[in-house]
């Protein structure tokens, strides 16, 4: 055990010496949190919509007022000659044409058609706009015509945990998980491949330390560093995004520690596979980052991932920790229902530990 601890002290001393890795460990994660937390918004507010009305009546003006009443849509100038004009110019995300007979039709209780074209190059916001337009139409109908608007069964929709639909509550916990995957594993990969690149690993091979102790020592050192990163990130997101721990604290800390360990062990594993530091960085960047960002449910629900790819997400630690962060910071889920998360994470960490130590054991000289 003494050998493991001296390994830990050596790793931390080496880590503290390099200013670039220090910045990579503590400054860049913070920048990433700011960028993800503030600048990643899926749903647009203030979507520009261009309306052209050929109708001069008051009813069409009332309809247009309903359309822009919620602030989700804002009026934009109608440029160009036809309905595609504002969209081609990129001035508006939707264009609406109200025909000349609109007021007359509505006044007589007939259905008035209006023409709507939505820029669907952004698929998600195309749906948002469509919902807004339909909701505005329904609201307008109800306010105009009591008989028609009469609803016998009224849905009372309540959005739990996040009634204000604040996207930060969705993005920030996910970002914590993704960032705590990316950076600890990057640092560990650098540390491991540095030994190989500089040849110092040969000294370790001929020393009495076993490969299991070597990997344990590295993993412990970098898990400690990762814990420091985690404290910093979580404190920052509590201050900036108003996150509060509402779930079971023991469960969260347990999951956090095994998650960080699995991230570090993945980095160590990548480090043993690569021969140079730049190759190691590239390896974790292509295999680790993209999968953590895209297959973890960070941006869009997991069930939307196409089939063969969706299998990969099941073995990704980041996927479980994204879930745990949302449970801990937003939902406040029950202890027992979350047990699978630390279980999955620790089996992943154990697997990576055994694989990495075995690879190194094969390289090691027999003593």
């Amino acid at each position, binding site marked *: 055990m003494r050998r493991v601890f001296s390994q830990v002290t050596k790793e931390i001393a080496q880590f503290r010496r390099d200013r*670039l890795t220090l910045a990579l460990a503590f400054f860049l994660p913070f920048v990433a949190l700011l960028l993800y937390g503030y600048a990643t918004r899926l749903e647009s507010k203030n979507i520009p919509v261009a309306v052209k009305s050929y109708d001069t009546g008051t009813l069409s003006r009332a309809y247009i007022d309903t359309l822009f009443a919620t602030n989700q849509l804002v009026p934009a100038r109608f440029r160009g000659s036809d309905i595609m004009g504002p969209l081609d110019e990129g001035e508006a995300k939707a264009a609406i044409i109200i025909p000349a007979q609109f007021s007359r039709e509505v006044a007589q209780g007939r259905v008035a058609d209006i023409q709507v074209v939505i820029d669907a190059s952004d698929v998600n916001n195309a749906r948002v706009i469509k919902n807004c337009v339909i909701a505005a139409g329904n609201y307008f109908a109800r306010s105009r015509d009591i008989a028609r608007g009469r609803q016998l*069964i009224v849905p009372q929709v309540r959005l739990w945990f996040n009634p204000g*639909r604040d996207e930060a509550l969705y993005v920030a916990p996910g970002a914590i998980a993704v960032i705590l995957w990316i950076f600890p594993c990057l640092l560990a990969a650098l540390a491991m491949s540095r030994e190989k690149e500089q040849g110092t690993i040969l000294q370790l091979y001929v020393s009495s330390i076993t490969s299991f102790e070597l990997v344990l020592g590295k993993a412990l050192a970098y898990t400690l560093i990762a814990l420091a990163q985690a404290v910093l990130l979580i404190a920052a997101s509590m201050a900036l995004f108003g996150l509060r721990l509402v779930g079971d604290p023991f469960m969260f800390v347990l999951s956090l520690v095994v998650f960080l360990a699995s991230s570090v062990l993945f980095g160590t594993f990548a480090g043993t596979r690569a021969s140079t530091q730049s190759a190691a960085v*590239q390896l974790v960047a292509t295999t680790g980052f993209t999968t953590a960002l895209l297959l973890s449910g960070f941006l869009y629900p997991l069930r939307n991932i196409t089939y063969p790819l969706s299998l990969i997400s099941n073995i990704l630690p980041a996927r479980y920790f994204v879930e745990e962060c949302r449970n801990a910071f937003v939902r406040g889920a029950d202890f027992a229902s979350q047990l699978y998360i630390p279980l999955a994470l620790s089996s992943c960490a154990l697997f990576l530990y055994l694989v990495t130590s075995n690879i190194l054991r094969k390289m090691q000289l027999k003593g």
Partner: protein
Amino acid sequence: MHLERLDFRLQLRALIRKELQQILRDRQLIFLLFAMPILQLFIYGFALSPEVDRLRLGIVDHAGSSISRALAASLVVNGVFEVEESGGTEAQLARKVQDGQLDAGLIIPADLERRYRSGQKTRVQVLIDGVDANTAGIASGYVGQILAAFNRQLTTGTQLPGELVAPQITFAYNPGLISSWFFVPGVIALVLNLVSTLVSSAALVREKDSGTLEQLLMTPVSSLQILLAKIVPLSFLLMITVFVALMVAFLVFHVPFRGNLLLFLFVSFLAILVGISIGIALAAYSENQRQSLLTSFFVNLPVIQLSGAIAPLESMPEIFQWMSLLNPLRYYVSCVRAIILKGVGLEEIWPNVLALAAYALILLSLSSSRFRKQLK
């Protein structure tokens, strides 16, 4: 005078040949240039989808009547919701939503049938897990529409057509709302930026790292020739990367190409120049490959995040939208989407092209003068 120019061209040609051979020999660079774009396009294209469907819905039906069953059926008919075990009571339903086992719940009161017969209004409770604010917002919009249609069905006795305003909605540019059509053009831009910065910084810094740069400087070639010999073959190879990415977009994701191919290639070339300039700057400020690679994280993270390639720029808070004006990749992303999906030409996107060209020019001259200064 004439001979000198000939010399310059001959030397440059020799250097370019040397560069090409060096790059093509390097497996790491070949992987970056051709395999990574394909890999990234596949993952992004198949993984990212903002679809709102198959939400797990638990139903607690206290009424147990034909109307309540019809109501439940209307919610699942278009695939937005899928009925799952609710546990039978409101408390258990709530527990399941809180534990993340259900995404939504519907609670139908016992007196639904009675109130319906007497023509009274009934409230049914719909609760949606709001953690994913975007999905929850769209889902609650759907609930409203489904119930409005259901009510219309119930009250058809009044002989009135259901609605007063009937928006005839068409989705332009992407009528099937295929999400990969949105992401793939963005990812082409993102990958091109990533690859061009990484490859160019690697190609330059390696020469510094191994000391061969000094050897080159001892020969009669000028620093301008050295730099040009790096830029020309790289731009050529990166244009092939663009083609490869475009082929994946067509063949795998069936993204339509509606615009002008020449215009697309021209803006892609500008984007490549921007990427190479960033790479040159990284190489100029770094001692070795490790340092330039790690520094590239500090540059590429904000450049990619504030480009609109993944999360739309319009959704960002205003300050980030302003900041993104400083980001050359932003202009390329919007050019690529406009050319590929919208099929618009130079007269619509010229401000973006102009901005991109200006950035390419400024960055290229700044970074190359910085690099050349170092050589002296």
